[in-house]
């Protein structure tokens, strides 16, 4: 008897402390040195991307006398094959990289939320078809699937956003569906149904805000993954095409100058890795925090 009592109070206690901790979700997510660093990195990168046109307005100025110079006081990251400052070019490229990744993330969330909610709400064969399709898309290696679309549509930045958004949406659909299904069995949804609210109103006005944190975690991871796939596509020459340049494009060109000009490949490569790592760290932390909260 006494053991079952302590067990009961043990399981009740975390609930209360979680409820008490809830206001400081920011602290829970950003409270470790790792996530704080990652958040700092993201802020710096976004600032660089935003300020690129102001700080480096002459990134495209060709300087034939300064071709492929190694890093120096004047050019921290060296220069490219046309004598342009690599740091300036990378700042502008970061802008495009982030723009494509954020666009893809936004599209994947919109598509995925509708996809998952419709599946959860309709059930039966609609759900079966929708979720099997999601599984199918996830079964093809992402880069190959992206290549199918690149073959059909080409690869300007807008098209890349659409392609990456489509490829990343099944993941959002999957978590949306499973969290929505949990919500749909809860008392407040049953109450609202009894009151006579329409199904789409319940789904998008009442349920969506409750599943949103879970979606936010996946969305953050989708940014990282979109950057990865876009950079891969650009690196193999089927993503962002010159004269436009993402970090992947710079890396591709830099790699072709590798034997002599190590900096041209190294710095874009490191930049891509750091950006992906930062978004990954935040996304994973968010996911773990939400897991613990729901457990």
């Amino acid at each position: 008897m006494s053991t079952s009592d302590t067990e009961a109070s043990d399981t009740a206690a975390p609930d209360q402390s979680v409820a008490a901790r809830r206001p400081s979700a920011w602290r829970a997510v950003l409270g470790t040195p790792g996530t704080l660093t990652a958040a700092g990195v993201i802020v710096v990168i976004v600032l660089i991307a935003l300020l690129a046109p102001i700080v480096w307005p002459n990134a495209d100025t060709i300087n034939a006398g300064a071709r492929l110079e190694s890093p120096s006081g004047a050019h921290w990251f060296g220069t490219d094959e046309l004598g342009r400052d690599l740091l300036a070019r990378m700042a502008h490229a970061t802008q495009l990289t982030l723009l494509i990744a954020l666009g893809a993330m936004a599209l994947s969330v919109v598509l995925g939320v509708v996809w998952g909610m419709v599946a959860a709400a309709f059930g039966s064969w609609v759900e079966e078809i929708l979720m099997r399709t999601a599984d199918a898309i996830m079964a093809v290696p992402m880069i190959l699937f992206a290549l199918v679309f690149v073959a059909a549509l080409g690869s300007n930045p807008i098209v890349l956003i659409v392609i990456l958004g489509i490829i990343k949406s099944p993941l959002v659909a999957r978590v949306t569906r499973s969290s929505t299904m949990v919500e749909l069995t809860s008392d407040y949804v049953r109450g609202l149904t009894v009151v006579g609210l329409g199904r789409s109103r319940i789904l998008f006005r009442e349920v969506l805000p409750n599943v949103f944190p879970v979606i936010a975690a996946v969305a953050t991871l989708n940014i990282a993954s979109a950057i990865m796939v876009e950079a891969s596509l650009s690196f193999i020459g089927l993503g962002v095409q010159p004269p436009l340049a993402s970090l992947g494009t710079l890396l591709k060109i830099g790699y072709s100058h590798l034997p002599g000009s190590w900096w041209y490949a190294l710095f874009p490569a490191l930049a891509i890795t750091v950006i992906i790592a930062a978004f990954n760290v935040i996304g994973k932390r968010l996911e773990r925090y939400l897991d613990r909260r729901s457990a």
Partner: protein
Amino acid sequence: MLSYLLKRVGSSLVMLVIISILIFVALRMLPGDPTTVALAQGDGVTEDAIANMRAELGLDKPVLVQYWQWVSGFISGDFGYSYFSKYAVSELIGQRLPATISLTVAALVLAIVIAVIAAVVPVLLRSKWLERIVNLCTAAGMAAPVFVIGILLVLFFANLLGWLPSGGYVSFERNPAKAIRYLVLPALTLSLAIAPQLIRYLQGSIDEVRWASFVRTARGKGIGWRRTVSGHVLPNALLPALTSLGITVGSLLGGSVVVEAVFAWPGIGQLVIDAVNKRDYAVIQTVVLLAAAVFVVVTLIVDLLYGILDPRLRVAPSRRAAAAPKPQSPELTADGLLPTEERADV
């Protein structure tokens, strides 16, 4: 068991059908047509020329007929002909297959060796420090795209030290010693790209049995830690890790496309990139569907194998969660797939 088998085979087939439809819809329904690329070079392309080419390639037939021809051909092993080189697609793939297979098999073996060492040694030595270093490397490896790993290796081993060639391919028949020299960096790159997820998976399943009561019993009987690990922990931990093999193969297929581009490795990946540039739909649709089929079949085999080796899994997935102990980390999602972070992206 039979109903489980039929169910799994059936759902795999459904998945492949959906994939084939998606590929086909993307290539045929969306704007863009291979004839425009093929005929773009010559001036004064007549409507007749385009119509002729479309008829020759079978693009003038109804879409459903085209789909049926493709899929029925695919099943019987007839992949059709390239739109441009006029070779059979199967012949093109056959030419490139040895390079890709040697790369992916070498990478898989290397990755498994790396992963087992990285996951087991810290446990064997009970070293928190080693574990931390492994975890840091794993996190870095997960964030680093394949081509970044490749470029760093090229910078170090080819440019700085000059030990290995930075790219190229020599077949084993021609010169085995040279072939291996050319294979080392690409295979190492690909293996380092997929090793982190293998390490995570292994760590998770080791962690799960490490504190199990039978391990405590073994220790209590006076068996040394190393013998406990090799005799009790590993045999029980390696089996659950087997399920990650399907995902690993998927990452291998995607990763090889990029690795081949980094090292000018004349495999299937280069074939696809070339085909995308030329809009050679016949090649693209076949290679992508083949890759998906390999992934689905490997997943299926692993599942069935696992079902044979672990009877608890022969029930429906919904009951599976209750019957089998839930892996600690990485946790499986409700659908039995790895959570987002554990799936390598490329």
